[in-house]
């Protein structure tokens, strides 16, 4: 039987679901959303108050348009930075696991901005407001007067499709590969929005500080992606040159693996997660059968490897999901020599029991 549900189990209290739920709430998700919406209203209020202070004559519509634009843009930057931050430092992983809520929230704020902008600037004439977005300014060849609203419009469409397909149901029915590709289009939306802001708001509010903020945001996003990519490349190169003997590869000291957590390695194109628990070491394929989640970023909960994305669980010794579930993972032979862990990257058939290596064994 297949199991698809949107939940997290880091507190170890949830069970695998057998059917979809709208949202399977847990304590972490509730806290995450409380903090997220607190932050959203905080930005809206602080920015709104500063606008009222600087422009006392500002209309409510303009205030809403500006405040929601800034809030959505800040949230988009956060969304784009969470991925590389989590790769650089595991302490950011909890932000990654609930990123969907952040994405949908960002879209809702952006939708308010888009709706108010269209009403304010395009709904008062006799032309269809959406048609007016495309036709009111046709200086497509101009640089300084380019119709920037179109850029925002297309970005909003992309963000809509992403938000509308954020549930697990879509991962399964579109296939994980297509779903992932679809959601990578957030980078197209980001590029469109950078141009939307540069050609729109910053043409009117052209104080250097606004340009500096836009550039700093872009540099932060690009820099984090670049740093995480370089780190990943270095790690892969190191693993490629690791010592090997009798088919086993030295993956480093056992002390590098935190208790009840894993170290992940790529060897011979095998994506392997090596877990340390109760004085034992076991290795399994690093990809969850549910939605290709990174098992190596999960923890051992109640004796089971627990996927950080949705809480799917597997026994570390044989890669089998606990009964009554039937998913199985490839397992890998491991041994501990001195202080170092050695893994054989040839995968055993899925669900094969392998005696865990004991820490401290010679």
């Amino acid at each position: 039987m297949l199991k698809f549900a949107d939940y997290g189990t880091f507190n170890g209290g949830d069970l695998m679901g057998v059917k979809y739920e709208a949202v399977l709430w847990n304590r972490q998700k509730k806290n995450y959303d409380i903090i997220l919406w607190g932050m959203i209203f905080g930005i809206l209020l602080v920015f709104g108050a500063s606008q009222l202070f600087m422009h006392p004559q500002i209309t409510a519509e303009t205030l809403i348009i500006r405040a929601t634009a800034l809030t959505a843009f800040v949230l988009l930057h956060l969304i784009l930075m969470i991925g590389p931050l989590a790769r650089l430092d595991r302490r950011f992983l909890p932000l990654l696991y609930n990123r969907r809520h952040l994405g949908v929230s960002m879209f809702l704020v952006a939708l308010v901005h888009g709706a108010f902008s269209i009403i304010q600037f395009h709904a008062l004439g006799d032309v269809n407001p959406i048609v007016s977005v495309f036709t009111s300014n046709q200086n497509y060849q101009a640089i300084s007067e380019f119709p920037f609203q179109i850029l925002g419009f297309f970005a909003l469409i992309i963000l809509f499709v992403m938000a509308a397909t954020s549930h697990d149901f879509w991962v399964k029915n579109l296939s994980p590969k297509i779903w992932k590709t679809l959601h990578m289009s957030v980078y197209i939306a980001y590029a469109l929005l950078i141009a939307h802001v540069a050609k729109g708001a910053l043409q009117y509010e052209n104080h250097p500080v606004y340009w500096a903020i836009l550039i700093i945001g872009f540099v932060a996003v690009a820099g984090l992606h670049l740093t995480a990519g370089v780190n990943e490349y270095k790690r892969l190169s190191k693993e490629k040159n690791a010592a090997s003997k009798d088919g086993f590869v030295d993956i480093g000291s056992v002390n590098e693996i935190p208790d009840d957590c894993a170290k992940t390695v790529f060897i011979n194109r095998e994506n392997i997660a090596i877990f340390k628990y109760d004085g034992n070491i076991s290795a399994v394929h690093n990809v969850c059968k549910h939605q290709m989640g990174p098992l190596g970023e999960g923890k051992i909960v109640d004796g089971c490897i627990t996927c950080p994305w949705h809480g799917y669980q597997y026994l570390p010794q044989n890669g089998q999901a606990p009964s009554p579930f039937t998913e199985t993972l490839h397992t890998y032979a491991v041994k501990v020599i001195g202080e170092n862990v050695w893994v054989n990257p040839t995968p055993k058939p899925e669900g094969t029991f392998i005696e865990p290596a004991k820490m401290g064994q010679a």
Partner: protein
Amino acid sequence: MESLISSFLQFVLIYLILGLVFTIAFMSKGLSVVDEGTKETSWKFKLLILPGMLVFWPLFALKWKRSLK
């Protein structure tokens, strides 16, 4: 330009209306056939996937058709 965009918007509108009609029928009879995980799911779940269904409904029409064979 204006007539071209108006025509395209009309096409999009018709596509979405067809999607809504299809989705209403699909959610009552075809959804659980195409995906077993949707059996006995709540109206909140169906509401949550509704916007995406309006976009991707031809995919589910194909899946439903295949499942009937």
